[in-house]
């Protein structure tokens, strides 16, 4: 049955991708909140924030991208939850297919849908004056980190998607994730924050990820931040993957 894993996953991913493309509002909703925040921060608050030589839109774009992903994965949980509620999930589970393919289809769809939203947000940022002289390798590194971050958060999203009792429960988990970039270096340099807040901001995952992406885009040396960022992403990914699979096993047996 493992031989069918890729074929089955591809067929099931095609199905969930149709769900995304047929409700384009989910992609637009995912992109519109970060875009609104971007407008607000750049044109309202930005003037009062000192980011040195870097223009504010360049400074805050990495944080906005992470917020985009955090709000995008709420729909991953939602789509999974909806599948579990209807009979279609039971149908798939009673068919001779690779069982983990059902879950992987949702994960791949989450990745693709988030990439579309990220491209939209970057497009708006470009209109707002975002510029980067980063080379191909730096952009690839940025894309790699964003994909890793999306995968990590997606596997987190799978857990409430499988275990939630209500639609609200399935998507509520994403609010703290959306909020996390605000207490980081995403919008304001951390050295302006009072002691304990600063300590939290500097040691939570978002700051290292934001700093890495920002340094890559502004062609600064990335230093050790990139390793901290990768460690966080991979660590979260592994832990979330394990717990998601435990929930899945429990659910299908």
């Amino acid at each position, binding site marked *: 049955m493992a031989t069918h894993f890729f074929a089955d996953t591809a067929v*099931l991913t095609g199905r969930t991708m149709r*769900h995304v493309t047929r409700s384009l509002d989910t992609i637009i909703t995912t992109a519109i909140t970060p875009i609104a925040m971007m407008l607000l921060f750049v044109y309202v608050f930005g003037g009062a924030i000192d980011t040195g030589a870097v223009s504010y839109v360049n400074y805050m774009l990495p944080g906005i991208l992470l917020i985009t992903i955090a709000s995008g994965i709420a729909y991953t949980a939602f789509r999974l939850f909806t599948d579990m509620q209807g009979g*279609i999930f*039971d*149908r798939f589970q009673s*068919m001779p297919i690779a069982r983990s393919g059902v879950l992987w289809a949702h994960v791949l769809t989450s990745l693709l849908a988030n990439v579309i939203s990220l491209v939209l947000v970057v497009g708006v940022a470009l209109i707002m004056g975002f510029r980067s002289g980063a080379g191909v390798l730096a952009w690839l590194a940025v894309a790699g980190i964003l994909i890793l971050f999306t995968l990590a958060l997606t596997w987190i999203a799978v857990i409430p998607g499988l275990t939630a009792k209500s639609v609200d429960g399935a998507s509520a988990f994403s609010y703290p994730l959306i909020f996390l970039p605000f207490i980081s270096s995403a919008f304001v340099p951390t050295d302006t924050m009072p002691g304990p807040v600063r300590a939290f901001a500097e040691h939570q995952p978002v700051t290292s990820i934001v700093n890495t992406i920002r340094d890559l885009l502004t062609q600064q040396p990335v230093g050790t931040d990139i390793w901290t960022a990768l460690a966080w992403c991979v660590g979260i990914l592994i832990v979330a993957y394990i717990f998601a699979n435990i929930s899945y096993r429990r659910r*299908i047996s």
Partner: protein
Amino acid sequence: MTLRQPCMLAVMSIPPTTNQVQGPAIHVQGLEKSYKELRVLRGVDLDVARGSIFALLGSNGAGKTTMVKILSTLLKADTGTARVNGFDVATQAADVRESISLTGQFAAVDEILSGRENLILVARLRHLKDPGAIADDLLRRFWLTEAGTRRVATYSGGMRRRLDIAMSLIGNPPVIFLDEPTAGLDPQARIEVWQAIKELAEGGTTVLLTTQYLDEAEQLADRIAILHQGRIIVNGTLAELKQLLPPAKVEYVEKQPSLEDVFFAVVGHGGEGDKDGDADKGSQDRKPTSNRK
């Protein structure tokens, strides 16, 4: 024509293509299942003959859905054995899944896809050649050709159930489970679904259906088992079940039309507009059947 004739069936039946194992299609012995304190199944025994329609009758909470879930490998029993198409549901789950189709209590269809896309999806997952042709053929057989390109979200309850059953037929599995196939349907849609189920069995497929409607079991089933408080308390053909009660007295009673007769006389038979093709035949097939006595 409304009451299924077992002898006629034997002549008409075409054996399914999937590899068959001899013996009963479903064999269940001493099956028990509890959810914490609640003992849902308390030792169920039953056999379902190949090519028959077997109705598991019971009120809400009798354990019907639990039975179906165990037989379709979605749930593990605490004790007892269950074999489907000769395969043990616990140790040969993959073989069981090759042999069955499940139509769960909630229509197991994808609302966002069209009817045709739903059928193609299942055909692809069963690794069949030419999924498009399979889909078109089933749409025709289940009077859904016109609605085929529409999203399932726009379908009526009866159309959804028909699509659901059509999806279960893909790959020609020898055993099909239908969990409350007509729950929540209007009378017309019910008769359409019954017709679909009869067509299944005429093709030689074994059907195990659960229902809480007595007339449904009476209409469709070759054998009926009554599941009550986690046990099968009666198991037999309709005639055998009727013998459990004292023989009927012969009385002459003026035949009054039932409400169902009135409903169909007033509404007409072809009223839904979602069917195509042979309207004449269709209306004959869906002829109300309550006045056959």
